[in-house]
């Protein structure tokens, strides 16, 4: 078997297609690296500036009374740009990179515009960015996901379409099978031969890409990032072997290599180019989205109901326990409802995206796209992770406020109202800070399903190729 593999590799290395492939992949990977080196520092800078500003706001809110912190909360939250952005762009231009902490809502003012009733902060999730200022032509980003998903799969077919049909045409297949080699050994030899011949130019191009990126002084890759890159490389191999198996399958069944290539091309166009978008648009048309107007309309009855419930406390200027508790309950409930409404909207939208994703998972190209996005820390999954991170922090900060208040025996422990909270001074250093993190094991868990599906595809196609080749007459 090793012999056959070696022969295949030598055969391929000397061919025109190998040279063309190497040039093509190198060109793509170098472009990708140059672009990343040019753009990543800008992204990081923007993020740092935003975080500094947001942190300054938290410091300002936390410097002084506990009430101010409870009322204004932290500054806005920003999504940390992934250092593996070059692996998968993940529609970052569409996804919002901020989660806003709204200013405490003003419920009432007096005749001289002084605030007399003000609630507490809540989280709100901005909608996706519209592309309505971009008049340029529509193009996809040259990232690893594109290079692997579209180009490498095409190359895999390019290397395998004549694996059997070509040898049959030249008559060398008979010769080989006349030897005492079992057919499955021939198949596996061919499989590994093609896979290794494709991996060589890809690995070369990827290495050049990573060399460029890691030597650039402006971009830093951590150990974890290297681990993730390793996983992405393994994914690329798995995905390529899927198309190698497909190529072998068709090549074994078809008599002429030209016909085999044609069939493979049409299959590729369907699987990689058309299936993802067509299926997604079909899926998204199943459930209509709620418009912004409807979103506002939902809000009004909720608010009125709340006003009625707490009416008797809200307008009294007394500072007794009951009134304060009434106000406090009103503020917290209002913030909670506001947050829940935003969350529901986000959940509704993401469930739509998930449905579309589930349907498009029939196409291996989409599976790969999702997997690479998952491990590169970009895309929709990552966005939801960011949302979760901020929610966890929001809880943490609220608990911190409650705990600090509880530690003060003089405080009446009524949160959200000035008179009901601890009067002790707090320092900004004692307040927990937000940090946006990525979790590799979590990424693995979410990716497990898709990973299994992709492996399943490979196995099915490989066994299909085996059956086809075993039964074929030479």
């Amino acid at each position, binding site marked *: 078997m090793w012999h056959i593999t070696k022969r295949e590799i030598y055969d391929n290395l000397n061919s025109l297609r190998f040279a063309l492939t190497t040039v093509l992949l190198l060109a793509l990977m170098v472009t990708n690296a140059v*672009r990343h080196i040019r753009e990543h520092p800008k992204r990081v800078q923007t993020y740092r500036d935003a975080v500094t500003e947001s942190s300054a706001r938290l410091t300002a809110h936390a410097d002084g009374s506990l009430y101010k912190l409870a009322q204004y909360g932290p500054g806005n939250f920003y999504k940390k740009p992934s250092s593996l952005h070059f692996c998968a762009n993940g529609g970052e231009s569409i996804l919002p990179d901020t989660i806003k902490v709204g200013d405490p809502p003003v419920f009432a003012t007096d005749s001289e515009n002084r605030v007399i009733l003000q609630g507490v902060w809540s989280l709100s999730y901005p909608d996706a960015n*519209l592309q309505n200022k971009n008049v*340029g032509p529509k193009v996809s980003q040259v990232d690893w996901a594109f290079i692997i998903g579209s180009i490498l799969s095409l190359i895999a077919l390019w290397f395998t379409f004549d694996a059997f049909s070509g040898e049959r045409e030249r008559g060398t297949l008979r010769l080989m099978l006349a030897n005492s080699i079992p057919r499955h050994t021939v198949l596996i030899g061919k499989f590994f031969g093609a896979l290794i011949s494709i991996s060589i130019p890809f690995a070369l191009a990827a290495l050049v890409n990573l060399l460029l990126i890691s030597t650039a002084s402006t971009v830093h890759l951590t150990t974890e990032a290297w681990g993730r890159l390793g996983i992405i490389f393994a994914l690329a191999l798995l995905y390529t072997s899927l198309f190698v198996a497909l190529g072998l399958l068709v090549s074994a069944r078809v008599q002429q*290599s*030209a016909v085999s290539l044609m069939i493979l091309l049409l299959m590729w166009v*369907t699987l990689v180019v058309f299936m993802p978008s067509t299926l997604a*648009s079909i899926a998204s*048309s199943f459930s209509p*989205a709620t418009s912004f107007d409807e979103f506002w309309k939902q809000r009004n009855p909720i608010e009125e109901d709340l006003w009625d419930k707490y009416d008797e406390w809200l307008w009294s200027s007394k500072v007794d326990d009951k009134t304060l508790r009434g106000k406090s309950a009103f503020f917290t409930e209002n913030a909670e409802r506001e947050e829940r409404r935003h969350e529901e909207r986000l959940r509704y939208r993401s469930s739509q995206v998930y449905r579309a994703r589930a349907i498009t998972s029939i196409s291996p190209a989409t599976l790969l796209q999702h997997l690479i996005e998952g491990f590169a820390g970009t895309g929709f999954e990552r966005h939801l992770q960011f949302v979760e991170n901020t929610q966890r922090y929001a809880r943490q900060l609220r608990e911190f406020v409650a705990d600090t208040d509880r530690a003060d025996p003089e405080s009446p422990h009524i949160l959200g109202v000035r008179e009901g909270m601890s009067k002790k001074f707090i320092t900004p250093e004692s307040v927990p800070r937000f940090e946006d993190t990525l979790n590799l094991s979590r990424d693995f868990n979410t990716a497990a399903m898709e990973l299994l599906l992709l492996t399943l595809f490979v196995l099915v196609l490989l066994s299909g190729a085996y059956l086809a080749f075993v039964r074929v007459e030479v």
Partner: protein
Amino acid sequence: MLKTLIRRELLDNLMTSRFAAVLLITLLLVVANTVVLIQDYEQRLESYNGAIRTHYQELRAAKTYSTMAILVDRAPNPLSIFNVGLDKRLGNLVGIYHGFMPTLWNAQMHGTDNPFIAFFSLIDIVFIFEVVLSLMGLIFAYDAIAGERERGTLRLVLAQPIGRGQILLAKYISAMACLLVPLILSLLFALLLLMRSIPLSTADFLRIAGIVFASFAYLSLFYLIGLLISVATRRTGTALMLAMFVWGFLILVYPNLIRATVNPGGDIQARTKIVEDQIQQILDEYERERQKFLEKEGIAGETSEFSKALGLHSYAFVDPVTLMSYVENISLISEIHPEFEQYAPSAKRYYNFVEPLSARTVEKTWHIRKQALDEIYVRQAETDRVLLKFSPVGVYDAATQAWAGTDLEGVRDFFSTARRYRKAVIDYLYAKEAFSSREWFIADKGAVDWSTLPQFTFERSTVGTNAKRALPDMFLLLICNLALFMLIVLIFMKSEV
């Protein structure tokens, strides 16, 4: 002789499995996507109609001139099913106000879609053709000459008294005749589905004819590229491999690569800042004149009795990103207290002076803005488009967009119509002497009657304009075709059999 050749080639092509496969795939893809695209179009149309209704009501709700809110909407283009272009991406809702010049950069979306779904880009019919037709052309061409050479039949044909050019012509004609079958058939199916739910005008059919013609030229271009490879190579295997490489490069790699390598030009922020300052100067000038007038009338000061009496909110600002300049003087009161009634004549004089001034001011800023916006946003996109045209895909895309009217020019037509409408509204206000009327700032003696306000209508540009915009790209496609054919003839003449 030519006829015999053509017939032979035609039969040869029609009876192959590749013809059946190509036909099936094209039909399947076009029909499936057309259904989805029509659904999408209907959804957008519904949201457009809803927006029109809301905006009509909003206009009626305004009781005074100074609080008027005229919002105009852009209807979805039915031909966006063929090439969506910028139709879905750019804003389709813009305000009309005398203190503001509507441009593409200030437009908003009235869509009700889930914007996250934009992850999965919708494909249009032209995109399917871009990928499938090119593949078809190459698949039919790669063995046209190389195959005959391998089988030895080329010698046989050449032994006949027939010119080499004629052989090529026969091959070209018959292959194109075959390739047209899936193209026309799938388009017919698409049209059939379209006509069931979307009314199309004669002009639309002419535009579709233009798209079909462009598709034909594109298909032929790829057939000729395949033929060139076939003539230049000895073996079909090599020809096929080269054809596939060329296809991958032209369709997949080049269009995406070019955008990544071109550096977004210049320091946009610095450029914007300069223009912002210029506009700010004009706005300051406006503010000075306004204050001068107020002082002359003896009613100056933000907290003056006059401002309070009218509930006057006056601002003039420029947006640092889109350079939008906006000048507004609204009066937010429902009644005038009797003690303030003395200010009513001043208010009439004030508005009569300040509103024409603000209209003039934003018109002055408009010239500076237009140039800057073109330089900042449009020029980069234009460069990208030109670079994209080195691949046939770019030319074909541009030509079909121009035919469909979903290109930048087509969308801009809407905004120039909106600007003309703004002018018409201002003329109407002058004619009604609205600026110096009491209804401008207060509705206590009767609200404004909006029924005579000129209506906004937007007609897509005529077929002639579409054709004129598509012409350069159509020419480019045809010239490439001719040049390639000549090159092929030359190579074939000189080649040994």
